[in-house]
């Protein structure tokens, strides 16, 4: 059984053998093969013995992946082959869109439909946990739609301002 796992920007590949009666299996990663024994301490806690080294891990499943805690490091682990590719969900999936990086409240909307905007121009100011964040134009163009208003609660992936991209060559990308 082969796994391709996405952790942050990295992809880790693991080859895992059959789990035997002692809940042990062989795991190969980076060309090295090791014997791993697993014990579920509780639904959240897992004890792993890798060769003779012991690790306590804590796990919490979430949408699209699993949070794993190990020694103060929290990692979001995803099966790289089954990461949903939904349009406009999260920052990674929507580069260059005007969307808040965190759930937030809209404080000010600085543009209207039809406005010409230049790359980097401030479009919307949102506030999250007492911190104000300015969302700016990812490229130059014309404002095609404003999908929010002052006071609105917004989340990552929601496109707050849509911009018709200006003809190529006007950007300094």
């Amino acid at each position, binding site marked *: 059984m082969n796994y391709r796992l996405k952790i942050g920007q990295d992809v880790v590949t693991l080859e895992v053998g059959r789990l035997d009666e002692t809940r042990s299996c062989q795991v190969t990663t980076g060309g090295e093969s090791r014997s791993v024994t697993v014990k579920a301490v509780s639904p959240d806690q897992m004890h792993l013995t890798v060769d003779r080294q012991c690790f306590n891990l804590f796990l919490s*499943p979430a949408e699209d992946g699993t949070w794993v805690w190990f020694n103060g490091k929290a990692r979001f682990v995803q099966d790289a082959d089954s990461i949903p590719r939904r349009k406009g969900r999260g920052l990674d999936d929507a580069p260059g869109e005007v969307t808040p990086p965190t759930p937030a409240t809209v404080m000010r909307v600085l543009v209207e439909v039809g406005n010409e905007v230049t790359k980097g121009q401030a479009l919307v100011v949102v506030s999250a946990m007492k911190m104000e964040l300015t969302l700016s134009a990812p490229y130059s163009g014309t404002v095609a739609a404003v999908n929010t208003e002052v006071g609105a609660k917004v989340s990552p992936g929601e496109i707050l301002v849509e911009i018709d991209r200006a003809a190529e060559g006007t950007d300094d990308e």
Partner: protein
Amino acid sequence: MFSKILVANRGEIAVRVMRTAREMGIATVAVYSEADREALHVLTADEAVLLGESDPASSYLNIDKIVQAAKDTGAQAIHPGYGFLAENPVFAKRITEEGLVFIGPPADVMANLGDKTTARTIMARSDVPIIPGMTASEADPDRLAVAAGTLGYPVLVKAAAGGGGKGMRIVWSEDELADAIAMAASEALAAFGDGSIYLEKYLDRPRHVEFQILADRYGNVVHLFERECSVQRRHQKIIEETPSPALTVDLRQRMAAAAVAAAKAAGYVNAGTVEFLLDRTGAFYFLEVNTRLQVEHPITEMTTGLDLVKHQIEIAAGEPLPFTQEQVFRRGHAIECRIYAEDPEANFMPSPGKILLFRPAEGPGIRYDHGIYRGFDVPVNYDPILGKLIVWAEDRTSACARMIRALQESVLLGVKTPVEFLLDIISSEPFRAGDIHTRFIEEHFAQWKPDTSTDDVAALGFVLNDLAGVRPALASQADIGTAEQQSPWQRLGALDLLG
């Protein structure tokens, strides 16, 4: 003594105040907003009153509603926590006028200390050292040069209308002064429409060292030693400790005396904190007085054994301080790390969301003051502080080691936190050496990235979780029922076919 108090705050500090009240046999009233219906402070109190909508103006900053809640529930006193209305003299005055007791300093003392210029004047009168600087703006370069000479280089050229570092210049020697004045003035003119400037003594990488004060109504003032709060990001403290690694016995004595003098000069009553900047030569300067319980108060509690909230309540009830300065002792070393919902990899961007797992560390010398539980949704409306992890040990080295263990063992999943960042700071050489200052993070950790060298352990956890059926990691919540009805062997067989 009061029989019931209202806590006009939320989160970890509200829970912390209620704990002491309960130990004192005092009933507690929580107030809350729509967003906090299921917040821990609401679940902790004996009674809870809904104030209104989630925005602070309709809830935690709404003086009328809070006063009404106190009257409706028969609370005799109000503890403001920190933040929100804690340092609002209008709130303190109103509470007194309504025949209730504000657990904090008198409104006029708070107003005086809240005004920077008034506070400076009060301190200067009592020989508390203040950061030397000009009191009015000046345009004449010759007079500025004379002033700079008197202050001693380096000096800071500042815009009178200033803010955000605009129009600010550090000048290391006299020959740089004329240029710096011209540039600062033109920058200030462009930014604020006002080019007036003034000079202040520049402190190179100072430390932030503060003294805890307790004062009763009868003129008794004691200090409970210092807290070193130099490790800051965006001018906000993230690691605090006591004792400060920088203070000698003599310096501590002089700073403590200045802090007590400052409290007396201001007519201070209740718990307060006198903040100083300490420069590399051992010179210290008054910064401000925080007229409230500080976020970092637990490290003082851990080392002195005193409950600051208990003493706040007793002082507010009119009781004299039950001990003198000579009876205050300190033992060992305490460190606090603030646990915020924020992403240290993305410029400390707030990270609200649902707490999926929370399991604080246990064992000797560990205290976790927090306002969360598994399943709690951290609202976007308020400060991102989730809690504070505090450790005590016999010396600084042991306290650092204990903090590392406590951070590693305090599982918190679901929102981003700076735990890994804090671990790296406390493990770092300059922190271990006690060589900290207010620009410490900019200097040593500006480009911080998490160490991914043990990420294969997390990957292993994911895989074994999936294989051994500890919990079906890849299944959606709706599928969990069916997955649990299969034996792991059936599931494993299916997986092997796929593999």
